[in-house]
């Protein structure tokens, strides 16, 4: 017996639209089952996880904070994935962006100027792009698998951050704790609406980036080039587009947005550097990109949904006493269902009950 995937002749437009919703519904059902097995009331747990965080103003602000890096990175990754380049290392580019962006407020901490913040953001984006240039270079010139190289570089970035914080950039007045000097006020990304909560400008950047990317993909020649090269490299060459240059573009673009997300998070929410600056935003952004069907506007919605899983995890830890690892379980379930729904849209499953034929291969 074997299971075969047969390509469908035509893809149902209805199902390709509702597939993310279907995946979401399946995630909720299986999440409820998981809570029941853990001995918790599934309805109360789901309420605490997915609804309670949406009922308070401050927690909506927290949602914007969590969603901002997810949307920024998800949008960059979507553009990269559309061009058939698979940057899995956004987490590393996020980390390096946070480091290069923090260079000014940590090393030149007594330079006070309104230029500090724009320069920090620029340096953050630049750092992320340069770090993404490594897998791009390896793929364009040595044909290495970018999935592996970009993923491995994540751990290098994280250990580099760890080394910096415990070494050169440790706060001299920090009682030997592994944290950097606190950022000066002009190095901190301001809040959008200070009176009601903490949400800062990174969320605005995320929305602007999503809208611009949507416009680029839909209306400009660059977007056309990305789509063509992603679907048929040979046709792209016929159109005069270069797939090598597209490798560079995809990685530098997604790397820059990841770097911007990194410095945005550090400058807006954390206000100093520390060994752990991200609860896996860079990996979650991959789920965000796919749940948003690689469409920048869809990614705004999916970024909010995945942001909610982080908040829900924290809330569930407090109110029903389950580990916040539940967040990762939900994210994993969601990615699994998104990908399997997509597979079933494109393929039919057929089970073949064939006898093994002896002797003749």
């Amino acid at each position, binding site marked *: 017996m074997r299971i075969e995937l047969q390509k469908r002749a035509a893809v149902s437009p209805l199902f390709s639209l509702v597939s993310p919703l279907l995946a979401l519904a399946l995630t909720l059902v299986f999440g409820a089952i998981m809570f029941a097995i853990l001995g918790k009331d599934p309805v109360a747990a789901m309420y605490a996880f997915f609804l309670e965080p949406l009922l308070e103003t401050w927690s909506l602000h927290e949602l914007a904070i969590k969603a901002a890096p997810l949307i920024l990175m998800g949008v960059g990754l979507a553009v990269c994935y559309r061009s058939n380049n698979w940057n899995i290392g956004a987490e590393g580019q996020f980390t390096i962006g946070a480091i290069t962006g923090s260079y000014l407020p940590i090393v030149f901490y007594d330079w006070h100027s309104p230029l500090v913040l724009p320069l920090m953001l620029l340096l953050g984006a630049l750092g992320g792009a340069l770090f993404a240039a490594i897998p791009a270079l390896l793929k364009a010139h040595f044909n290495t698998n970018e999935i592996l190289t970009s993923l491995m570089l994540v751990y290098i970035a994280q250990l580099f951050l760890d080394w910096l914080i415990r070494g050169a950039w440790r706060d001299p007045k920090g009682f030997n704790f592994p944290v950097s000097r606190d950022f000066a006020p002009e190095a901190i990304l301001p809040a959008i609406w200070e009176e009601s909560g903490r949400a800062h400008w990174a969320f605005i950047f995320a929305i602007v980036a999503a809208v611009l990317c949507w416009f680029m993909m839909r209306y*400009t*020649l660059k977007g056309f080039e990305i789509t063509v090269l992603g679907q048929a490299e040979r046709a792209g060459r*016929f159109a005069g587009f270069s797939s090598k240059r597209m490798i560079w573009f995809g990685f530098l673009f997604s790397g820059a947005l990841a770097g911007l997300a990194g410095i945005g998070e550090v400058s807006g929410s954390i206000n100093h550097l520390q060994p752990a600056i991200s609860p896996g935003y860079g990996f979650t952004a991959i789920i965000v990109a796919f749940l948003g069907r690689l469409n920048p506007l869809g990614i705004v919605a999916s970024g909010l949904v995945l942001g909610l899983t982080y908040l829900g995890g924290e809330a569930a830890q407090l109110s029903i006493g389950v580990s916040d690892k539940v967040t990762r379980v939900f994210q994993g379930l969601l990615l699994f269902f998104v990908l399997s729904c997509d597979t079933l849209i494109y393929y039919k499953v057929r089970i073949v009950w064939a006898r093994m034929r002896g*002797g*003749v291969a």
Partner: protein
Amino acid sequence: MTLSEDALAVPLLSVRGLTKLFGSFAACSQIDLDIAPGEIHALLGENGAGKSTLVKMLFGVLQPSAGQILWNGQSVAIGSPGEARTLGVGMVFQHFSLFEALTVGENIALSLDPKISLAQISDEAASLSKAYGLPLDPKAHVADLSVGERQRIEIVRALLQNPKLIILDEPTSVLTPQEADRLFETLFKLRDEGRSVLYISHRLEEVRRICTRATVLRHGKVTGACDPRQETPASLARMMVGADIAEVHRDNIPAGEVRLEIKDLSVPSRTPFGVSLKDISMRVCAGEVLAIAGVAGNGQGELFDALSGEHTVPQADAIRIRGRGVGQTGINGRRLLGAGFVPEERHGHGAVTGMPLSDNLLLARSQSDRKAFLAGGLFSVIRHGAVRTAARRVCQVMDVRKSGDDPAAGALSGGNLQKFIVGRELDRQPALLIVNQPTWGVDAGAASRIRQALIDLAKAGSAVVVISQDLDEIFEVATNIAVISEGRLSDPYPAGTLTLEHVGLLMGGIHDKHSQPEATHAH
């Protein structure tokens, strides 16, 4: 009649009235063929003549629509390659089916009874390969082996089944002349043991050298059976391409300025299976249709890549479009000089299957029609409305049948998509059009529409280069004909002075320039 005489009279394999229909198209029609024990029998024919279809039926890959296969005089039905092997038919395909990551021995074991141990298979393979002069190391990884060595694996794999008939499909097309010589020695050895070989080729010299009998196919029918040693390459070629000379009714257009000039263009092959272009020179003038004939895989794709600029060449002056050296200019630079291109492969090269027709129009014309299709300066915002109007115009002019206003390219039939792809270029009145296999796999109606469009374009004063394997098409559209063979291009000859036989000879790789009619050097 004594028993031994009887055995002599009965061929090992006979085929009677074998026919294979694909829909209403007869790929093979009423084929008769006899293969005696201990002979090397050639199966000759152009691409698309039905050789592969016939062989696939003999090996059980395809089932005949009508007719009979007799094995040692007994009627048999060959339902699968496994049954063919049990019967005693071995096959070496043109494209190898080997796992590169596995060793030679493991690859051979895969096609045999799983009960036999790997060591035993390796031993047997080693002794067989020694006996037949096919040196092979069973422990070597396939990825490290040359093409010739890989072919030996396939041959040894076939021999391990102890077949009485071995079918080889274009075996020398991937071999160097030295490797080919070695292969021939092996074939002679097999023949001397009383095994039969069915040898498929279009190389006439080779067939005359090693085969004692030949069956020639053309358009799915047997057009001749002969002893190739008694024939000349010319007479074989005539059987292969047909003795008729196509009637060409074309207005003579006085040739205008030179639009495309190629001088001593040599391009080394990019891949081990590719063909290197060697010293190619040609000139194409306004009003001229130069057709380049040739059997597939003789450098047509490579020539198209070099002409289109998808792969540039180091010498800028080796290719000149309208007097400008463009060797190092990319495809869009050449389009801006007025050139248009139609590649052989529609899906994924000439068009992106999943994209609508309007996007596929933009694919070829984003730079040449920048002013009309793009706005917003540096941002290059696409004017979807203008592109859609142009796509609609192309569909109307070329009579592209489609459902909906702007369907995905993949939703169109081959013929309609090809009409669109050709029409996309014609729409901008190119000064030079280069087309590779304009009507490959296209229905007759669309094919004649496309051919007429090419002739009309030349009449209107453009230069046209048509690379094609279809000789009927070539004689229909060409003013001049050149032949490409093993990466070399012959001199061009005016279509009127050339017979199909000449073209066939040139296609078979015989470069005997003295026996040709006078070449058209004087442009």
